[in-house]
């Protein structure tokens, strides 16, 4: 039987969850509407049927859900908790930042919290301001929490398995606009990969573009556009943000001399600043000032035309690439 199957992004997550539940008897999977209904996006469909009471629905109690994950993880379980939207994690941020993140360090390694939080974020057409944020930067400032943002079906699958296998708390941030996309070939049954790493989505010598999350597609589209004009973009899609592959970025910029960081999160205080800082602190020689492109520093409006005015679009990314390279 072949290990390659065609799966949507959502299907790849489902397959990864099934494998974890199969392979690690200590996993439990829970969240709002994940069990009987199979998840509001259908991502956890069939899992309760297959794995019984290890997969269960919870009340709308994010603090209890995440706190329970910390406690269960301390005791040797590997809880996988779905927080339906990253925005909702804010009602329970204490359990991530003040609790999960401290377990191993403060106990001098006597305790650990091998839990995985699966969530998704970002804008989708018509979504309101409370369902549209990109909040990865908040977690990336918290030592003790690993963070990944897989974009491809393969990475969605592999990252989740790596997260569950990891003995530290990991937040895997998916994106609901990716769930129903086209099917892609996904290689199953590989051994769990170590956490960390990136994908080079295109090779080029003129400008390095670092990106993560669903907006990577726009970055690649923009890179295609400018390639036709003779601009070679080196596109690094950061799959893991903690740990972040700083060296890969520095190496690329050493080659290209130019840096653009693109994220869907708003610019100020976003992780793009960190990427820029790590490159310039290392003294990598630059032919042009580095640039960041992200959402404008405002709230996200519901109307599609307004949201588009706020979020980075392919044309703007292409313009930024041109400006960086052609000055």
């Amino acid at each position, binding site marked *: 039987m072949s290990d390659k199957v065609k799966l949507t992004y959502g299907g790849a997550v489902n397959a990864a969850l099934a494998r974890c539940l199969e392979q690690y008897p200590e996993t439990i999977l829970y969240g*709002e*509407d994940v069990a*009987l*209904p199979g998840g*509001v996006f259908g991502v956890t469909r069939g899992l309760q049927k297959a794995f019984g009471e290890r997969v269960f*629905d*919870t*009340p*709308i*109690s*994010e*603090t*209890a859900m995440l706190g329970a994950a910390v406690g269960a993880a301390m005791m040797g379980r590997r809880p996988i908790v779905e927080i339906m939207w990253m*925005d*909702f994690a804010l*009602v329970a941020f204490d359990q991530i930042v003040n609790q999960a993140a401290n377990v191993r360090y403060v106990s001098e390694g006597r305790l650990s919290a091998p839990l995985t939080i699966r969530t998704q974020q970002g804008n*989708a*057409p*018509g*979504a*309101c*301001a*409370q*369902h549209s944020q990109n909040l990865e930067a908040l977690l990336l400032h918290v030592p003790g929490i690993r963070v990944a943002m897989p974009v491809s079906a393969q990475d969605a699958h592999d990252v989740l398995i790596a997260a569950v296998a990891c003995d530290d708390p990991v937040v895997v941030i998916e994106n609901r606009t990716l769930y129903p996309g086209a099917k892609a070939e996904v290689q199953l049954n590989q051994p769990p990969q170590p956490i960390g790493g990136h994908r080079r989505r295109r090779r080029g010598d003129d400008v390095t573009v670092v990106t993560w999350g669903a907006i990577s597609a726009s970055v690649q589209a923009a890179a295609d556009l400018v390639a036709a004009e003779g601009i070679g973009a080196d596109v690094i899609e950061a799959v893991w943000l903690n740990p972040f592959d700083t060296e890969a970025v520095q190496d690329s910029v050493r080659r290209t001399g130019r840096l653009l960081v693109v994220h869907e999160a708003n610019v100020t205080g976003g992780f793009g600043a960190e990427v820029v800082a790590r490159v310039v602190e290392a003294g990598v020689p630059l032919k042009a000032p580095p640039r960041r492109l992200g959402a*404008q*520093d*405002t*709230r996200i*409006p*519901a*109307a*599609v*035309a*307004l*949201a*588009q*005015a*706020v979020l980075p679009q392919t044309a703007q990314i292409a313009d930024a690439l041109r400006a960086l390279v052609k000055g």
Partner: protein
Amino acid sequence: MAEPLEHLLGMWRIRILEETVQQLRLDGDIVGSVHLANGQEAIAVGACAQLKSQDAVFATYRGHGWALARGVPAHGILAELLARKTGVNGGRGGSAYFSAPEYGFYGENSIVGAGVPIAVGAALAAKFDNSGRVSLAVFGDGAMNQGGVTEAMNLAAVKSLPVILVCENNRYSELTPIEDMVRNPDLSARAGALGIPAVRIDGNDPVQVSTAIALARQNAAHGLGPTFVEAETRRIVGHYIGDAQQYRPEGELEADLQAEPIKRFRRQLEGAGVPNEIVDGVEEKARREIKEATERALADPPVDPSTALEHLYV
């Protein structure tokens, strides 16, 4: 118009607004997640009938009906959902997070439970501003399990703040039955344990709702603090448009459709001898209003992207 007919008109307005929204959403004129209140109209209508102009309503994402019952014009709501400049928030709120403070509608909220502390804050303000405001928080059965709701209820209780706590118990949180998420299905007991007067009522009867809210409003106005009203109801549509509702046990929807407030209220009016043409006339009036509002909203100009950065700060 006599009060019962007002109730009927209010409920029809909501029903038809929601049906219109559903159609616009299926047609692609409205984009994104939409939560309808079909079947729950009696609560908004019965409650708002007792509120005064200075009062402040805080609803959830399932709030179109509350806005309409509060007096927000259907046109402004539809234009908001249709991303028109003339929407109550110029398209920034959308279906799930709009407000219209001019009408005492202080907004929907798309974070479960989060509106309750905010409503309690509006009641806190009333302690100091001589407005005579009573504030009303609406939230679902599922929201009872969000910690901030308990916090807010306790704060309201201990400070005796003028707030009415309306729990719309439609028995589901999204796709999950509340009975699977609590041991004690009597949610009002939690309010009682905090020292808050609490009643469970038939939320599909606008008259019963109105009575409970009338008393609750008086409690608030007399400085007695919060009252908790658990209004039992059924939503007769999906949680969101597109919800296949496979979680419903067989026969449930059929039963719910029999108990739904408009059909029931019509039967009551008929039983009381109100002539058919008067009852039907109410529905037609509502249909005309919503139709006209829809046409106007559809003809309105779209939002203007050049304004997208305005109003973040003062």
